[in-house]
């Protein structure tokens, strides 16, 4: 079996395990066992409990599914947007490239933090945690594309000038056919962008909690669990606080192994 297939299998296994833990009878990510905050591992709580006595294993499982789904979707959207913008700029009508790069440069400089605040102010305060999470990942997807789009544009321009592309255009291929052929050749730019965005979005979602967005309580947030690592008091309280980051590293390595193009 190839490494890729093993990695894919492990990844699916991990997700299934998380789903099973979540679906197990009696498991709840929000139930607070207030007599046992920061409890160690036990039969009742295999990975111990958090500061409010909630089962860490169940919460990590729920966070894995929720945050991974959101960040994967957002990364896919932002990578697709970067690819679309870059390819459009390179293969589109004259002046398109200039416009795309201009938009990217302006986008990169603007303080989008304030747009996020505006989004929060427009949303009803009783927006459910799940809806808030979805909106957050959507906003992150909408804001994450310009940096990579510039690099994709440059890459697409080089492809446009390459020998085989010139030959294809001379042979009469339509621009959209040419663009479709170009995209797989941009994989060395797009795949890393996709993979880098996943943990970035997970952590960004947690940081957006300060603006009222992000995954709200009692839903568990993977990014929120990662942010606990910046509290040395928490690090000394329990070793289980490292579980989310270990899982994230494993997931990223598995995704890296799956998303190999050569």
């Amino acid at each position, binding site marked *: 079996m190839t490494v890729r297939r093993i990695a894919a299998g492990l990844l699916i296994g991990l997700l299934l395990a998380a789903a099973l833990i979540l679906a197990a009878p009696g498991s709840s990510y929000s139930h607070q066992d207030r007599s046992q*905050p920061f409890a160690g591992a036990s039969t009742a709580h295999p990975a111990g409990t958090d500061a409010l*006595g909630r089962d860490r294993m169940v919460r990590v499982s729920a966070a894995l599914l929720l945050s991974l789904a959101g960040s994967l979707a957002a990364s896919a959207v932002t990578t697709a947007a970067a690819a679309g913008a870059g390819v459009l700029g390179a293969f589109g009508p004259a002046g398109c490239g200039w416009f795309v790069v201009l938009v990217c440069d302006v986008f990169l400089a603007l303080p989008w933090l304030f747009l996020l605040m505006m989004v929060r102010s427009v949303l009803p*305060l009783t927006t459910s945690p799940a809806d808030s999470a979805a909106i957050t990942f959507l906003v992150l997807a909408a804001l994450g594309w310009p940096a990579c789009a510039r690099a994709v544009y440059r890459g697409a321009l080089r492809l446009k000038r390459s020998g085989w592309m010139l030959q294809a255009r001379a042979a009469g291929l339509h621009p959209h056919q040419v663009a479709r052929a170009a995209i797989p050749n941009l994989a060395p730019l797009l795949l890393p962008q996709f993979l880098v965005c996943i943990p970035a979005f997970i952590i960004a979602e947690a940081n957006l*909690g*300060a*603006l*009222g967005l992000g995954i*709200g309580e*009692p839903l568990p947030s993977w990014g929120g669990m990662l942010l606990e690592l910046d509290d040395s*008091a928490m690090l000394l309280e329990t070793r289980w606080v490292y579980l989310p980051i270990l899982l994230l590293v494993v997931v990223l390595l598995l995704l890296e192994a799956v998303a190999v193009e050569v």
Partner: protein
Amino acid sequence: MYLSRRFALGCVLAAVIGTVCSAQAASRLPGELSWTIGSDPRTFDPAKVDDQWSELVRYLTAGVLVRFNRLTQSVEPALAESWSQSADGKTVRFRLRAGLQFSSGASLTSRDAAWSIRRVLLPATGAPVAEEFLTPDKVTVETPDSRTVVVHLPARVIGIGKVFDEIAIEPADHPSEGRVTAGPFVIADYQRLRYIRLTRNPHYFGRDRSEAALPYASGIRLDILQDPEQQVRLFLRGDYDFIDNLPPDYFEMLKRRDPSLVRDLGPSLNTEQLWFNQAPSAPLPQWEKLWFQSRVFRTAISLAIHRADLARLAYEGHATPAYAFISPANVTWYDRNIEVPHEDVNAARSALARAGFHLRGSQLQDADGHPVKFSILTNAGNAARLKMATLIQQDLSALGMQVTVVTLDFPALIERLMHTQDYEACLLGLANVDPDPNAMMNLWLSSSPNHQWNPSEKKPATAWEAEIDRLMQLQASTSNQIKREAAMDRVQQIVADQQPFIYLVYPNILFAVSPRLEGVHPAVLAPRLAWNADRLRLRGMQ
């Protein structure tokens, strides 16, 4: 061959990482005390102080006629060796000490004191402390001789001694923004977003019992630093002498390391509370306004909240369950005898049922079938408040209420609370810097913009708010302590009955102190550890 190349590369990597490492350096002058403040002071002009850190700098640098002792909570002579108030309270006389000097060496006389007081009273100065005089434009100041200052007030001001604790005496006609002072320290250097450096005032009048000159310390460095992680690390390294307002989790961490490093002084004067938006003009559905304006609804919420859990889990045991707005730390005004609703979920359910609320499945609905769903706002960056909100969310789910917890950054939160009134419930704390209830007038008077649950009422919306208005005005207008206490006891009982604020906990006073620091006698009132900064010193310092 190939492996050795990789190995070589690995060594290079390790070397690079090693050379990149650098420790953070600290610079501290000999005999200098050091601690942190949260942000830059807005001003160094002692007359215009309007934020916490400016107030601290004023406290450390300003010479004042009388000083409100934060430990004994009594007014003591400072630049004035004695002071008196007439029987009607309208005349206050100060007798200055002989031989007073500013830090520049210039003499300090009654002319300087009178000029400083008049400057504070001028509308053009915009001094917040002027409001304490009620009608500042009618106050007059005389100087019969070079050591006597007489202040004539149009009406008695309760606690006038404490007011003069906030008026810095500066050189007449030459305000210096803390660079020429009569207090223990003088501002020597200020680097924005970095630090403020104070040096000892060589002409300070203070002496200890053996007549040695005060202050003991050569100076103070106030580093501008918010991150508690950095504060703790630098404290352990010896860069800081104490940390005030230590978060509970860091308290426990330091306690495990060395119990002598930390102290828990018990409940502070501060409160953490939850309140509902009762403003009729709030952009909320009418049924929500009816819930929030209902005493039964608010009382049921109060009955359902497990305050002991909030204290134990959100504050790691370093908080005391709260039921009233005056903390037990405020020994003069705390009323032990008020009747308060204690936790009783069944009583809460019964009360809601009598008011027409009913369960549909697991969801509570009002009499008209609206599901009881609302949000609790709190400020981002406060882990304890977020934990409390999450615990309350769980408590209220037992009643069938669906609560969303929303954290916002402070400016966005203030906009909703103070400007647009676009919120349902809010969980925040109140820092009480003065034990006297007069300091809370703006919170309890219904016409005040800071009357949080229903600000700026043209007339009191309810009979009980009208009663609170009357009682607060009464206690502010008399010097009879018995009458004042009786009025405040009644206010406390009304608040406990009506629950406009659902009090949750009184956070404890937590701090860390370096074993090298001598002379520490922590007080409940701010600045808790630095109230006697002129008598603090590092061990081994002469």
